[in-house]
């Protein structure tokens, strides 16, 4: 690479950033202290967070990029939407990141998922089991939610009018079908890369481009006092440090008489011991003492902690894998993978 042209480009991009900052400042002044609705404000925070990320990435990668399109799109977006000071929000984003310590997520999990996030949507890739499991868990969600909310099970979009949050949405494998089934979907994941992948993929289809994706945690949504008709946390609870707290958060996100669906793996005690010893004591992926979660993954205990979080489990089913056909099906056998549907007490 030619260092001089590199320098030139960098200078140019710096110039551009200055220009953009000025533009956004102007916008802010123009808007003044006009009251923006609470909802829009929240969106703005996300938007500007992404703006920040865009800028920071550009610092490192502009040498290979055609500069023209970036500049034009960034300006476009600035002119299309009311925007606030990017620099300020950039720092806010960083603050958020530092702030993520109290969340119930384990760092090892975050790291692991980031590394393989690229492959989320490859149905033949490492997420193949999840793609294969998807129709089965959706069949359970469809039947239980249709019954609970008295929706027509023969409708192509039975979830029309339902507000659903997919906690730990990953690349959006579950969120997208829910949106196609008519739900207003919010997908949240603590891994920013997953959210980016999910956003990109959802935009491919007008039916799923309405999904709201946020890089956040259930706890933060509770702080924001968000409420949903149905809260779904599929294959997530085994990745959280404190399932009881997590369930309380899920419960807090659910409206009264709303639904909560959780699916997870019912591991044997031996597997737990290995996981704790290996992960905490040998590999030091986890701080010692994060071990209580291990006992929470049996169906009985899940029912118990959900009950304490004022969610009554009404239905449960197991997922059974047929290695010959490579397909999953619902069954009464909850000894390995299982899914639970509960409703929130009023």
């Amino acid at each position, binding site marked *: 690479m030619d260092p001089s042209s590199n320098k030139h480009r960098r200078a140019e991009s710096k110039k551009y950033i200055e220009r953009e900052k000025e533009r956004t400042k102007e916008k802010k002044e123009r808007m003044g202290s006009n009251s923006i609705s609470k909802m829009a404000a929240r969106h703005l925070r996300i938007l500007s967070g992404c703006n920040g990320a865009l800028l920071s990435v550009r610092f490192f990668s502009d040498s290979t990029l055609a500069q023209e399109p970036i500049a034009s799109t960034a300006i476009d977006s600035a002119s299309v939407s*009311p925007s606030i000071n990017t620099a300020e929000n950039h720092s806010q984003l960083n603050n958020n990141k530092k702030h993520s310590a109290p969340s119930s997520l384990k760092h090892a999990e975050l790291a692991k998922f980031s590394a393989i996030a690229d492959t989320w949507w490859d149905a033949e890739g490492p997420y193949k089991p999840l793609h294969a499991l998807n129709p089965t868990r959706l069949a359970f969600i469809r039947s239980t939610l249709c019954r609970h909310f008295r929706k027509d099970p023969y409708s192509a979009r039975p979830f029309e009018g339902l507000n659903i949050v997919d906690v730990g949405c990953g690349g959006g494998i579950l969120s997208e079908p829910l949106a196609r089934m008519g739900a207003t979907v919010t997908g949240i994941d603590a891994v920013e890369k997953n959210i980016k992948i999910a956003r990109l993929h959802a935009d491919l289809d007008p039916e799923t481009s309405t999904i709201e994706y946020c890089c956040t945690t259930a706890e933060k949504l509770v702080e924001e006092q968000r409420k949903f008709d149905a809260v779904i946390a599929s294959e997530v609870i085994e990745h959280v440090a404190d399932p009881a707290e997590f369930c309380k958060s899920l419960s807090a996100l659910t409206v009264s008489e709303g639904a909560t669906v959780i699916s997870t793996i019912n591991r044997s005690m031996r597997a737990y011991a290995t996981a704790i010893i290996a992960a905490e004591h040998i590999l030091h992926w986890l701080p010692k003492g994060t071990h209580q979660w291990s006992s929470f993954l049996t169906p009985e205990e899940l029912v118990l902690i959900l009950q304490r979080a004022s969610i009554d489990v009404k239905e449960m089913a197991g997922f059974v894998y047929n290695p010959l056909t490579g397909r999953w099906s619902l069954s009464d056998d909850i000894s390995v993978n299982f899914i639970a549907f509960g409703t929130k007490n009023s």
Partner: protein
Amino acid sequence: MNRIIVGRLSVNVSGLRVLQRSFCSSVAEKASSSNSGQPSSESEVKQSFTNNDDQYDVAVVGGGMVGMALACSLASMPLTKHLSVAIIDSNPALGKSNFIKKEDPPDPRVSTVTPATISFFKEIGAWQYVQQHRHAYFDKMQVWDYTGLGYTKYNARDVNKEILGCVVENKVLHSSLLSCMQNTEFRKTIYPSRLTSMALLPSSSSISVDSTPSATTLFTKGHLAKLDLSDGKSLYAKLVVGADGGKSRVRELAGFKTTGWSYSQNAIICTVEHNKENYCAWQRFLPAGPIALLPIGDNFSNIVWTMNPKDASDCKSMNEDDFVKILNHALDYGYGPHPKSISSGSVDMFSWFRGDATLSAKECFEVPPRVVKLASERMVFPLSLKHANNYVSKRVVLIGDAAHTVHPLAGQGVNLGFGDASTLSRIIAEGIAVGADIGEVSLLKKYEAERKPANIVMMAVLDGFQKAYSVDFGPLNILRAAAFHGAQYISPLKRNIISYASGEQRLPLPLPLFT
């Protein structure tokens, strides 16, 4: 190394552009909805989505029997009736209604529809239209061969059924499906044109930053396939169904490979008239190939006669009287004697196996009714077998003859096609139930997994019959005769064969190869 990192970052950035764009638009929408009350962003998107006239959920290329059956089937199911369907076919009949005159003599192109196909037609609401036209149920079938060593009679009562099948002219099946489609409320558009090219881009989100989800931007994102037609129009669809027959353009454009061979045989088909009505399907295996006599109602029957190409052209050109003569000869004493009915009781080699003998086991051999005159022109078709190695790829699926062309031996070809249409529409409904994109390969693969083994077995069975009769060799003749005896006198085997031929059971025998 450096380059790889830079490359990945550039992907990220291009992704972020789209990310940013969509967040902006969602803010704009939310902001506008908070101002103006209720119109949700979802309905706005939907509206702009349906505003594109040339954009469909499903594009069916080929409006023949199988393609129309798929459209009717989609329209009949609660989960799929909302889908917008485009049918591309240059056949002018698709634009008209009820083009069949009842007085017309039967068309020589007929199909033997199985009970499974009949129930499919009833489900989609098309059978009522078939019943308004000429059709002939048959409850008996006699199969024998020229060596005079054996015969088999099948009776619907052996399997506690009323009928074994129904012979219907193809034009009746087609117009019934057309009436069914015209009388069903769903979003359908007929393009009276032909497919010239098809394009599908891989999924990519970095190309366009257009704010409206127009068909072209969705196409560039790989969400839609684009079809160009011979009249200069083009349309977009989430799923393209190739129902365009044995010379499928869709199959060619999508690059599906086929396996197959042509038999050096032709089939001559025509309609003939008897003195009395015929209620039985007859099939006799002759040295050059089988001849079938199928009832089609009134005093008419249909002939499908397989022979080598030279004989076929001779048969086509000879005068009517001569043709009727050799036809009667082929159905009676020609090439060999009548088989003996075992009820006369010399040797009963299967008595130990018979158990509760089926009714038809006691029935004697019969001679088919004589043909008195020819009632249509004679048509000649070359026979071939062709099978697509794959039925599906992203956003493309093949059904009917586009996926498999079979020997017309038992009139099974179109039944396989209707089976495809039925299965595909069910799989699409299952996908919609769980919110899948209907063009997803993982969903379409389910259709392939279900249909391919069924089709291959039927093709192998029919091909096997063809091969078994293409050799005239003493020991083999005896083996065939033994098979006939087995089929005639071993009741469980007979029931198996009947339910397989009725399209109700997948395999005639436990064939380990395909299970």
